């Protein structure tokens, strides 16, 4: 396989973007990405578009809305979908295009427009990403699934509501420093703990946001990467794995099998282990998900995730800084864009362009992106040149 590098990044403002449609959000990210790389769209061989919900986009093949609007035709456009992992599946699809030699320069776009529908409808669309026949009849929602995971983890390992809230406090702190974040504000532990319950025991500040937003990266073959970029960031590991649709069919609710398997593939491919990771973005759709991600990725022992955040080891300066862009919690979670946004944050960190949030001398970074309750997870490992 050929080497593949990220040579351009473009991040739109995440938030309630009532000023823009899906296609217009995508344009913002694409324009920023091409400018960052100093490339014109004509030079790009193909594109991959990650959009999770046709229901959110009010139409089938929403990716055509995007390639039409940015003027990318008649070249190839691959649309991919994997709920909240859609963006990372777009990246791995782009990676396969370049690594295989099918293309030299690929534009990877993730975009979602979630606030055009009311919150209750968004909650329903997301809830049906679980088992629509056997779980949804019990009124399940995404916070509901992760609340069940949280109760299982708390019962087995003694993880506390305080520890969950500490994840939120951290991610809001870093979100306050990220101009692209939906909620640029710090919160206190007390505020998180006294917010209303969304699904017991998860409270408002344990939950990520419903967001509009887009992100794009340009990836290139070795030859093109060296010509385009002074600081190409190499994709050295890429793993994807799956698990059962229904929570009730899993042996364990306290870890996410697809995440462990995807990490195993990515670590092996990159020839590194958890101790070699300098900075990570993990899928904190809910605070419990970040704690479980610490464990599944090997940043701590099984059951010790709560203690890792309590000891502030996932802050900049700690043992393994995690989600120092604000995470899904504070930056926002436009589901199709999230995985691409994670790749952008890691690229910035490895380029040394993360400003106040910079992890000193970061050489190797990891992005972990979970779809649904773990029906699919993608893990990428990046290294600077």
């Amino acid at each position, binding site marked *: 396989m050929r080497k593949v590098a990220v040579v351009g990044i473009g991040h739109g403002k995440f938030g309630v973007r009532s000023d823009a449609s899906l296609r217009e959000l995508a344009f913002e990210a694409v324009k920023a990405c091409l400018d960052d790389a100093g490339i014109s769209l004509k030079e790009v061989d193909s594109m991959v578009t990650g959009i999770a919900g046709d229901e959110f986009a009010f139409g089938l093949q929403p990716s055509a809305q995007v390639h039409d609007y940015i003027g990318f035709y008649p070249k190839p456009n691959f649309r991919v979908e994997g709920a909240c992992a859609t963006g990372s599946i777009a990246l791995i699809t782009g990676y396969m295009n370049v690594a295989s030699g099918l293309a030299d320069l690929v534009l990877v776009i993730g975009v979602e427009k979630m606030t055009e529908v009311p919150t209750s409808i968004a*909650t329903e669309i997301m*809830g049906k990403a679980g088992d629509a026949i056997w*779980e949804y009849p*019990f*009124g399940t929602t995404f916070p509901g699934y992760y*609340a069940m995971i949280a109760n299982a983890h708390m*019962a087995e390992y003694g993880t506390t509501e305080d520890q969950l809230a500490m994840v939120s406090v951290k991610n809001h702190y870093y979100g306050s420093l990220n101009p692209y974040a939906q909620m640029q504000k710090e919160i206190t532990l007390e505020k998180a703990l006294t917010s209303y319950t969304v699904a*017991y025991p998860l409270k408002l500040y344990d939950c990520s946001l419903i967001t509009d937003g887009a992100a794009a990266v340009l990836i290139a073959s070795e030859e093109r990467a060296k010509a385009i970029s002074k600081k190409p960031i190499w994709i050295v590991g890429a793993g994807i794995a799956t698990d059962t649709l229904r929570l*009730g069919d899993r042996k364990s609710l306290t870890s996410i099998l697809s995440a462990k398997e995807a990490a195993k593939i990515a670590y092996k491919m990159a020839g590194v282990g958890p101790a070699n990771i300098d900075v990570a973005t993990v899928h904190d759709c809910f605070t419990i998900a970040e704690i479980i991600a610490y464990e599944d990725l090997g940043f701590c022992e099984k059951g010790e995730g709560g203690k890792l955040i309590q000891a502030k080891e996932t802050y900049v300066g700690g043992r393994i800084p995690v989600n120092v862009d604000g995470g899904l919690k504070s930056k926002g979670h436009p589901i199709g864009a999230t995985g691409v946004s994670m790749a952008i944050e890691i690229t910035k960190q490895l380029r040394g362009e993360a400003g106040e949030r910079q992890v000193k001398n970061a050489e190797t970074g990891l992005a972990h992106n979970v779809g649904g309750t773990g029906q699919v997870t993608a893990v990428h490992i990046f290294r600077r040149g």
Partner: protein
Amino acid sequence: MDFRNFSLHISQTKVNRFVDELAAGKFMATVCKKCGKKYYPPKADCSNCMESDMEWRQMGGRGTLETFTKIYVPPDHFAVRPPLMPFSTIQFEPCPIGLLEVEDGLKIMGWIPKMDVKKIKVGMKMKASPQLLPDGKITIVLEPI
């Protein structure tokens, strides 16, 4: 019985018998005649050996609660509409749900209508029962033994 009385959205499936048995008070699993693998929820096809020769078998409803929650912000389908009458309010009190592990590691999801969520504990012994609702739908409830 129309499968949609249980599933809410889907009526076309090979395991429609499940709802008829549920309405008659029984939890039914399917078992692969070739390899013996047991499925709840029932499957018409065996993903263990790729055969489709299955038999129905009743299972018990007693087990251990694996996990639970109470969803305060429901999906639109279950949402209570605000009243149109001025100055009036509705107090919405949702019902907890849980996942009960019964025989052979199979897990039954159900509503827990009779318990305060703060008193529900992982590991509790509970019993699942089918329950016919006033609107003709069929569902499953869990209660402590």
